[in-house]
């Protein structure tokens, strides 16, 4: 640490300047049309001293008269003017389209290239895009803003974001490779939305504590480059199958003055979407508001103990409700509480503070960023609090030919998350409790479950549901994490034409998860003891995860002009990557001492699970880029990978790519470039899939387990996952065509890409038939095709001296199709949610929903069972929807008037279906609006018939005459009685969302300079302000999934928590 300090001291002294014989020079800088240009850099040549023009194009600087001022601005020709007079007005001249297209983007391996040279589509996101509104997560406001990527924002601070680039190419892991400053980082999540092995969904108890990318601080990001197609990412080899996102953190330049950036913001968080529920019927079942229990708690038989709103219509009368305790029962009006669920949530806060110090000496530079996020979400108490501290350092020193750079990031987080899903041995979930609370029972009235006996587990009004406040406060999950990632990069200029660089990087991530649930016991003779409510035995799970990734990269770049106008850049390199991890998880059930949540607190021995892994890969790569003038570029790349996770002898694979870029039109006003690429790319599989193994024995019963050792005898069983010695890598071949254009001096910008890719031998942990004795095997199982189009259109409709309007829209459409499934199968079940399956079906888009649907007559009338009046169901499941969206669009408007900027963005995701357990449970409990069909008066299912079989077995149909009586309506919405409604839980996930609105005011320079501040701005913003969903979905924010961030997340949600809406203000200062 001492040494590091010294470096800073040296840097600091190197940045001291003296100013002699100076005078103040002022002036206005305008463009060639005379419109003042803000943000023009004014530098004194040969020094780091400088200024920027303010909104009115005005600047002020102190300089000696023998010095020269350098005026520079992107897209304009740089001008040098002697500081001979005290007023210097400058008219900048357009550099012409050619220079405009000289935009540099970061491409694979961190190589910066001119955008015009790329034969494939990339998208860039600037740091400003991430910080217009203050975000906790990098992807929070990017939904709809990047063509070709379907981005789902996290629901609350600390939750995970999902980025799907050009559709799903992989069944297990579909998130892109994230590369920060040249080194890949770990993006795994530990949320339990999928089972521990990540292969199937977990509907019991899950949580979303974010994925690896959630740890990044958006305030320290300079830019992001999104490499979408195979041609762009082929150099990253086997990990680039889902695209690559290159993130560059903020750094400083050599010879720049010390500057301090400061940001502070405060957000207020509110619940965004709560289910829209019915307000006509109250507590009860089958139309009755009374149930008969045994025992003294309901001596008068005058109240209901149901967990649903299937009672009579509200009449406003004052009624007793809940249990009778010592002969006393509570009373309340029998009336709706329309805002009941909403009122449960509270207003949370998010405070973000960030300070960055940066600067550069003669041969060195540094940037140090420290940020703190302190958030408490919309749930009462701190059950969803999120605290994160991040430190990011970027520094470099260069000698003649030698440059050393380092990028180091440290993250510390402390996060409480609220569990989702149905609830398990560690207690129930709030979402599950809320959905089963009758509509007339005040939720906030249940808050005090310690002193109010009617709210305690023993005497809560129903044995079938938990008090949500109990689940909130007594069942908890906490994650504490420490993470350190970064790299050191050495580069050496061997000759003018050859540069060697060597980079060693790593990502160390350690997380400790503690989750527990309280004991629930019921006092003998209390209402719920009498009702046989199963006691909750309580439990604790503690888990530590450690993931260490190390990555080394060496490359040589050789750049030469062959002849006039011809240029050749060659690169070769190799890469080694190692990922190692260990996880130790211990859990106990049956807590001994209540409210004491440690592993020692049980008479049962803890269940311990250990998982250590190690995987390695090596890669060798080369690329050759040939160019003619600045008009034609051809790039050829190749990479070969060797991986430890595929069978030895069959673990080497090669990916070539070829891309071409040609400028076909280039005038001072207009520009068109065409591009084309073809590439192959591959993917290996998870570790330890090639051999069989034995695991500690466990007999799963459906509910509960029998474990060993028992009677002093231990035992091991064959792992349900059968090893596969014949695995092959999955391969993707992608063709891409596109153009990039701008017209009328960039007033209109259009970028269009189309692609076609085919992935063969997709690896999937395929389920095996039970009779094999195994449950799954990783295998090359599927061939898949993705085709799509992505468009970005940017228009500047108005551009005057004081006012500018920028409009950008993106359009993304991806169509996937399952071409073939191995073993002659037509269908592969990826996940099951009650009666709905999420499948890959041959000839269909990836991720279809199937369910048992009502049996229909040949002319399409529903058949019901005569004796019940409920739907007869078909013998087999049929398709009931696709998870594939029709398209994703984003709209973004920026209005700039003098010092004010107003921005708003809307995203629209059209089409596709999702499974909603929230809908299912609200229908079951009679809280859903649709359950009030026909006012719950008797009706006959529309158009329904019954099957009539004559003696010879001929089938005819007769009109159905069995009505859904009031008492039967309850069971109509119960899938056990009426399985035909199961398909109804698959709903349209379309939405239109006002993603964010901000207004910011940048304080004029003339004012800030008095305060020795070089820039100051204040912003007010709102995030996730409004969302429209079709009437089929009054329930959930369709972007929420409880199933992680891979393909399975497209299956939908299982008792998810709501997303939040935020209002905030921020202040940004630069000294």
């Amino acid at each position, binding site marked *: 640490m001492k040494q590091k300090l010294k470096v800073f001291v040296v840097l600091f002294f190197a940045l001291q300047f003296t100013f002699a014989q100076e005078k103040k020079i002022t002036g206005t800088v305008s463009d060639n049309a005379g419109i003042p240009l803000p943000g023009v850099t004014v530098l004194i040549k040969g020094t780091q001293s400088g200024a920027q023009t303010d909104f009115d194009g005005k600047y002020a600087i102190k300089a000696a008269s023998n010095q020269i001022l350098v005026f520079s601005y992107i897209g304009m020709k740089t001008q040098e003017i002697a500081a001979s007079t005290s007023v210097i007005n400058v008219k900048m001249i357009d550099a012409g389209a050619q220079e405009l297209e000289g935009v540099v983007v970061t491409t694979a391996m961190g190589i910066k290239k001119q955008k015009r040279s790329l034969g494939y589509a990339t998208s860039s996101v600037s740091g400003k895009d991430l910080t217009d509104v203050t975000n906790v997560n990098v992807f929070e406001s990017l939904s709809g803003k990047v063509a070709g990527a379907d981005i789902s924002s996290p629901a609350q601070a600390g939750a995970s974001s999902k980025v799907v680039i050009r559709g799903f190419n992989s069944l297990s892991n579909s998130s892109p490779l994230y590369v920060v400053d040249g080194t890949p980082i770990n993006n795994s999540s530990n949320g339990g939305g999928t089972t521990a092995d990540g292969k199937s969904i977990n509907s019991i108890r899950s949580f979303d504590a974010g994925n690896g990318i959630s740890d990044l601080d958006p305030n320290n990001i300079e830019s992001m480059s999104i490499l979408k197609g195979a041609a762009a990412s082929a150099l990253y080899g086997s990990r680039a199958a889902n695209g690559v996102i290159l993130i560059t953190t903020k750094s400083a330049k050599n010879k720049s003055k010390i500057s301090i950036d400061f940001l502070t913001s405060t957000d207020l968080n509110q619940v965004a979407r709560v289910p829209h529920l019915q307000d006509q019927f109250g507590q009860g079942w089958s139309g009755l508001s009374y149930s008969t229990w045994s025992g003294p708690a309901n001596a008068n038989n005058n109240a209901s103990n149901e967990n649903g709103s299937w009672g009579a219509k509200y009449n406003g009368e004052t009624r007793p409700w809940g249990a009778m305790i010592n002969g006393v029962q509570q009373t309340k009006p029998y009336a709706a509480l329309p805002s009941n669920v909403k009122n449960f949530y509270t207003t949370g806060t998010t405070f973000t503070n960030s300070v960055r110090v940066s600067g550069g000496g003669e041969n060195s530079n540094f940037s140090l960023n420290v940020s703190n996020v302190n958030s408490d979400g919309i749930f009462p108490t701190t059950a969803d609090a999120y605290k994160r501290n991040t430190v990011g350092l970027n520094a470099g020193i260069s000698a003649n030919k030698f440059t050393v750079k380092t990028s180091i990031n440290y993250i510390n987080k402390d996060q409480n998350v609220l569990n989702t899903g149905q609830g398990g041995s560690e207690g129930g979930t709030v979402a599950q409790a809320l959905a089963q609370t009758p509509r007339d029972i005040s939720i906030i009235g249940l808050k005090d479950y310690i002193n109010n006996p009617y709210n305690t587990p023993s005497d809560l009004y129903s044995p079938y549901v938990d008090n949500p406040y109990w689940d909130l406060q007594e069942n908890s999950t906490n994650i504490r994490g420490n993470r350190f990632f970064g790299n050191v990069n050495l580069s050496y200029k061997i000759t003018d034409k050859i540069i060697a660089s060597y980079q060693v990087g790593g990502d160390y991530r350690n997380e400790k998860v503690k989750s527990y649930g309280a004991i629930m016991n019921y006092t003998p003779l209390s209402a719920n003891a009498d009702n*046989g409510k199963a006691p909750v035995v309580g439990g604790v799970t503690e888990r530590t995860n450690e993931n260490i990734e190390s990555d080394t990269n060496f490359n040589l770049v050789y750049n030469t002009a062959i002849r006039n106008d011809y240029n050749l850049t060659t690169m070769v390199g190799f890469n080694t990557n190692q990922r190692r991890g260990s996880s130790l998880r211990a859990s106990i059930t049956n807590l001994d001492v209540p409210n004491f949540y440690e592993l020692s607190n049980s008479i049962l021995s803890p269940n311990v699970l250990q998982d250590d892994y190690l995987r390695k890969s090596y890669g060798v790569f*080369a690329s050759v880029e040939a160019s003619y003038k600045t008009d034609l570029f051809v790039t050829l790349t190749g990479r070969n990978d060797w991986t430890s996770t595929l069978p030895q002898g069959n673990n080497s694979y090669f990916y070539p790519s070829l891309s071409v870029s040609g400028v076909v039109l280039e005038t001072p006003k207009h520009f068109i470039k065409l591009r084309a690429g073809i590439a192959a790319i591959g993917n290996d599989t998870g570790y330890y899939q090639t051999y069989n193994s034995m695991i500690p024995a466990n007999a799963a019963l459906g509910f*509960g387990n029998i474990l060993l050792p028992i009677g002093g*005898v231990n035992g*091991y069983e064959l792992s349900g996952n059968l090893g596969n010695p014949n695995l092959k890598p999955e391969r993707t071949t992608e063709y891409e065509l596109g153009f990039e254009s701008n017209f009328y001096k960039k007033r209109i910008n259009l970028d269009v890409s189309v692609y076609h890719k085919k992935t063969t031998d997709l690896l999937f942990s395929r*389920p095996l038939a039970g009779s*094999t004795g195994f449950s799954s095997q990783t295998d090359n199982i599927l061939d898949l095709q993705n085709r799509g189009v992505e468009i970005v259109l940017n228009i500047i409709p108005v551009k005057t001296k004081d006012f500018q309007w920028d409009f950008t829209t993106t359009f993304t459409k991806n169509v996937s199709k399952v071409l073939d499934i191995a073993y002659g199968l037509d269908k592969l079940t990826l996940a099951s949610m009650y009666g709905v399956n999420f499948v890959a079906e041959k000839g269909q888009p990836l991720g279809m929903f199937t369910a048992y649907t009502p049996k229909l007559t040949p002319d399409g009338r529903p058949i019901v069972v005569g004796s019940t009046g409920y739907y007869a169901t078909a013998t087999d499941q049929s398709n009931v929807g696709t998870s594939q969206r029709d398209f994703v669009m984003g709209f973004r408007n920026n209005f700039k008037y003098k010092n004010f900027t107003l921005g708003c963005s809307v995203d629209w995701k059209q089409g596709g279906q999702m499974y909603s357990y929230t809908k299912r449970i609200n229908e079951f409990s009679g809280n859903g609006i649709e359950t009030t069909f026909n006012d719950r008066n008797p009706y006959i299912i529309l158009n329904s018939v019954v099957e009539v079989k004559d003696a010879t077995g001929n089938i005819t149909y007769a009109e159905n005459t069995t009505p859904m009586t009031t008492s039967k309506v309850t069971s109509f919405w119960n899938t056990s009685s009426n399985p035909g409604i199961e398909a109804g839980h698959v709903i349209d996930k379309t939405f239109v969302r006002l993603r964010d609105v901000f207004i910011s005011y940048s304080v004029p320079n003339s004012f800030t300079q008095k305060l020795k501040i070089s820039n100051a701005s204040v912003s007010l913003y709102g995030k996730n302000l409004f969302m429209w969903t079709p009437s089929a979905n009054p329930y959930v924010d369709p972007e929420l999934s409880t199933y992680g961030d891979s393909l399975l997340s497209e299956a939908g949600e299982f008792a998810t928590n709501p997303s939040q809406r935020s209002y905030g203000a921020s202040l940004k200062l630069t000294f």
Partner: protein
Amino acid sequence: MKKIILSILILSTIFIGCSPDLDINKDPDLLTPDTTPLSSQLPAGIIGIVGAEGGIMSIIGGFWSQYYSQSSGANQFRNIDSYTVTTNDYNYAWTSMYDGLSDIKTVQRKALAEGNWNYYLIATTLYVQASQIMTDFYGDIPYTEACNPKILTPKFNTGQEVYDLMIKDLNDALSKNLTTSKGIVPGKDDFIFLGNMENWKKFANTLKLKIYIRQSEKNKAVSDAGIAALLVDPSVSFLDTDAAESNFIGSPNYENPLFEYNYKLNVRTNMRMSRTLGQYLTDNNDPRKDPFVYWNPSTASPKLYVFQDQGNYDVNPSLGYAKGPTTASVPAVIYNSSKTTSDPAGIYDGSKKPVYLLSREESLFLQAEALERTGKSGKEKYDAAIIENFKKNGLAVATANTFINGVYAYPTTGTFDQKLEAIIVQKWVASFPENGFEAFFEKNRTDYPRTSLVAQNVSSYKGGQFAFSASPDVVLPYGTFPKRIPYPLSERSYNANTPKLLDVSIKIWWNK
């Protein structure tokens, strides 16, 4: 320059290509199948099949043999009680059984290869015991090709084939000379008999008897010949003890599977006592009612028994049913978790109850029927079986005697059918609580206990007669009972050899 590039490429390719560095893909935390001793895999196999038989199979069997009915205050087993189990329900009944069988099969395979005839006999017997339940519930099942890591779409054997193969396999295992068995000797890892190989032989022979008896209706010649051969063979003796796993310690994850299953449900009291069995016990003043039925010792005195009509968990106007009572009695096995003052010995403690793969009384009932089928009297075995079951339920032999000399007296002078009815009805009662599937199969084979001609809400209903479900959700025509469980979706989706789905009302092949 190009040379440098080329040599780097070549060098690194050679370096990586030959690197043993990448041969690291075996999980360091886990044993491999080769390094796991038979004695460590057998217990896993046993808890696997015991878990499946004692858990979900006993639930389905218990509903369909009318021990239990779905509580009107909950939901869990409505589809069983209304005969609407679909291909998507209870898939784990199938998969968890095969999960256990896969370990048993591995033990069998290894034992055969090593010449360890002790483990070979144990594994073969267990494999057959579980397979018979599977084929009796599902019909055709994978038998020869099941549980083989090299065959991922096992072919199905017909029910008849499975029966023949089970006999063949048992004969093969019994033919080995156990004194020449090589390798380790089974001991406490044998949860069933703690390594007593004589008991294993008896168990295997009793299974053979059961397999022959089950074919008595559709395959009479084979059945009669098989039974006769077993009875005359002096080297054959039948099980005179329980083939049971009885080491459950009564705490979660280490307790009786039926108890564990219900304990882990949200509401533990989904299963209520059906009138069919309840009224039978009441009408006959059978004292087994106390150990069978839970009562709350602190409140109910005198003991309160409320039986629910089969399937009456909801209103069903067409059969004249109001919603069933919420106070219906709960079977003790799923509820009594601790000793109470009224049960100091913990006899009714469901959490520690053994799971019987074949109980002593079942063996005796089978022998009784076998004797009758070969012209000898089954009375002695029949009486012994009833006494055994009374004893198991904490009742005195003297008490049992009053019944075998009273209401349950063997119809010594009656017809064969009357004797068969007595045997099967008593076996039905004695199979409570967890071996209801056995009673269900025997009902399908013999039509005993009889089927009631009236619904249970009619006063002429007679206890012990099977009643058609009162559930409003029944889809089958009135009077058509379920005969099988449909193949699970998990098998149908991933094994193209799965036969086409048969209606739940279509009989298993041995069912006349």
